[in-house]
């Protein structure tokens, strides 16, 4: 078990090192930070001076080594644009993205699980077929189109929800939350729905598939034969057995949702990490781009590793199988 743990964690660290290299490689060749930081009127000498100060003249490996050492300590340097520590900027934006992703996840589970159950136990009924069909449309609609439509209908035409931003937020320590105020809750709804749409269909399809599998199992047949009412069979016996994969997938999808949130955040001008990233891309704010890539990948890798380890704890057979 210890060996497996070490192996799995070493693997994750290797992946993170590769991500850091990727981040560093890409960002070293884009744009010119010097142009970004200096006044348009700066002379050539001033430019050269700044290049030297930023360490842009050092060797490639030296720069990469410095990057990794600092990144590991959470130091991604100073944002060229905001002149603030990048890690601070991201920490400031993290709660917004996190709340959005969590609310979207809750919505996707709350809607996706019942739909999945219904389409599985009423397989063949017209509404199950219709839901199946709708779910395909759900995965097909580009999330930015969904966002635009939601704004157009619910903000502009009906005036029910805000069109942008987080509404009112409350500061609790370093965490800023919009969930404690009415305006904040109204503001999170549209973006969370738009972000959850894809996830709803994933949950629904997974629950359906798992339910169909479980319903064929012998213990369900026995329960039915014993005369246990259908509702109890479906929800107490069958659904409970499907929840593990759903929880796993939800955990693993959080990393993806954080990345996908950048589209939602752009459409709704939601002040989270994704919007920060897109703005950084626009303004060639290299330290912010690098930090975002590393942090999102870290969350992604960390979740995957934890799920793997959790599985290995539950099912020892998986420890040897390492693809």
């Amino acid at each position, binding site marked *: 078990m210890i060996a497996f743990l070490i192996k799995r964690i070493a693997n994750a660290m290797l992946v993170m090192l590769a991500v850091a290299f990727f981040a560093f490689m890409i960002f070293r060749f884009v744009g010119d930070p010097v142009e970004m930081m200096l006044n348009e009127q700066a002379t050539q000498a001033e430019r050269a001076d700044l290049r030297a100060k930023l360490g842009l003249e050092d060797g490639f490996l030296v720069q990469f080594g410095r990057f990794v050492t600092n990144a590991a300590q959470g130091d991604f340097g100073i944002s060229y644009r*905001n*002149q603030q520590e990048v890690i601070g900027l991201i920490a400031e934006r993290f709660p917004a993205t996190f709340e959005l992703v969590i609310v979207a996840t809750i919505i996707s589970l709350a809607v996706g699980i019942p739909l999945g159950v219904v389409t599985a136990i009423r397989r063949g009924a017209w509404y199950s077929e219709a839901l199946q069909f709708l779910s395909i449309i759900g995965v097909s609609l580009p999330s930015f189109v969904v966002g635009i439509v939601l704004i157009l209908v619910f903000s502009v*035409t009906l*005036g029910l929800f805000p069109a*942008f*931003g987080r509404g009112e937020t409350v500061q609790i320590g370093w965490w800023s939350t919009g969930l404690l105020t009415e305006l904040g809750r109204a503001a999170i709804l549209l973006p969370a729905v738009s972000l959850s749409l894809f996830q709803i269909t994933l949950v629904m399809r997974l629950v359906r598939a798992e339910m169909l599998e479980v319903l064929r199992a012998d213990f369900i047949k026995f329960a039915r034969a014993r005369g246990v009412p259908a509702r109890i069979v479906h929800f107490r016996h069958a659904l409970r057995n499907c929840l593990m994969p759903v929880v796993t997938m939800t955990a693993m999808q959080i990393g993806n949702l954080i990345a996908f949130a950048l589209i939602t955040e752009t459409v709704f001008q939601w002040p989270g990490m994704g919007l920060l990233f897109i703005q950084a891309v626009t*303004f060639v704010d290299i330290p912010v781009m690098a930090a975002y890539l590393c942090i999102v990948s870290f969350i992604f890798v960390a979740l995957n590793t934890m799920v793997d380890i959790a599985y290995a704890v539950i099912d020892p057979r998986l420890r040897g199988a390492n693809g």
Partner: protein
Amino acid sequence: MAALRYALLAGVMSAALASAAAAETFRWGSSRDIGSLDPYSYGDSFTINVMNHVYEGLVRYDRNLAIEPALATSWEVLSPTVWRFRLREGVSFHNGNPFTADDVIASLKRVSHADSPLKGNLPAYKAATRVDDFTVDVELNGAYPLLLNDLTNIHIFDAEWLAQHNAEVPTDIAKGIEGFATFNANGTGPFKVESRQPDAKTVFVVNPGWWDTPQHNLTRIEFTPVSSAATRVAALLSGEIDFTEDAPVQDLPRLAAAPNVKVLERTDLRTIFLMMNRRDELAEGGKNPLNDLRVRQAMQKAIDLELLRDRVMRGKSRAAGMIIAPEIPGYDAELDKLTPYDLDGAKALLAEAGYPDGFAFVFNCMSDGYVNEEQLCQAIASMWARIGIEPKLDIAPRPVQTPKRTGAKADVWTLGWATLPMLDSYSPLIQIIHSRDGNAGVFNWGDWSYPEIDALVQKASVELDRDKRLAMQTEALRIVGEEVIAIPLHQQPMSWAASAEVDEIPQFPDNKPRLWFVKK
């Protein structure tokens, strides 16, 4: 019917929001964020404009853009190179410190420091000396007629506060330290900074101890950058913001029709023109046809300025024949004649110059630059395509495009110039048209050189007689037009939109919101 329902909903909505927040809170949805709370750390006029609510200069522009006393009450010119300023007494900074001569000296030192991105905004400054607590002498490099204009934008910091927080020199981000003044502010202005979250929200609250009598009734300004134009419009319509300084021109009819929004528009002082690469080779190699006057004339004739105004700018711009607006000293209506649109003439000129089949070149535009710039560039590109030349459009955000423009990777590019804060035609002449030489010709990215113009500009720079100086500048501008050094397009429209609840919000031709004049 739909309009009525909308009006009702909008009314309910804004009533609900109004009761939630204090009536005097002014929510400003801007098109972009300020770069920093430190107006000296970032060479950007929008940042300076917003921070002017917190920091003030020795002098300021009044409602008519005439210079009036602010932190200085009077001044005299002791000799052509020494000015003496009497300072206002009884003014205190937001932290309670009194305002004195030391603050002025520390601020001038800070803004003209070698690391300051704003040192070019006060080019004539040499030194400042304290005469007494409320008198300062400012020494200049040479005679300079536009000192007061420059000083309107030089904000005064508290010397003690700067020293206390180790912020006496502007932030040098290359050193990897956050500047204290980047996140904290302490001015003398009508508003104080309450909080700031970059790109998300900056809150200003009224300064009850302001030395001047407030002409506004605001208690709080919530400054929220909303970069998407469509979102800004939606937020205005639904009553989530009270004001934007950048309402998209194409949405003005709809905004004007909405009962809860009013639109303020006029033409900006900013003139948009096209500048050209004048090196021997084009950006992608090959002989540069743009050095042939006939080619430049052909390109100018191929642009239908009136069509651009009517369609792309929706009739809101003012087509221009000169690179400065009529309000700018040095303007001459004689020179401001539009070049008539003449397709055949343009083709003939091209053929005469030896390019009957045209040539390809890089046309560099910004996606976040001037009003409707993407549209404008695409329309011009298609007009040029009609005379057989092949513009390759390169559109990207400003920070991406600027290095290409300065680094000879563009052949034609857009440039807008409002002559701010100088408000004089000397500004584009020295900064853009003059040959590249030290502090002159900083925006001469195409590397052109007209010794005749340089001589005129040099002479104007030391001429203290206003009329003589302006005559020289006008003459230089005449050559600019004759040689087609730039192709003027228009003075762009400036469109603000505000909630109907805002009673008074004066609009200025320099496109600078001055919220200390706002009543809600």
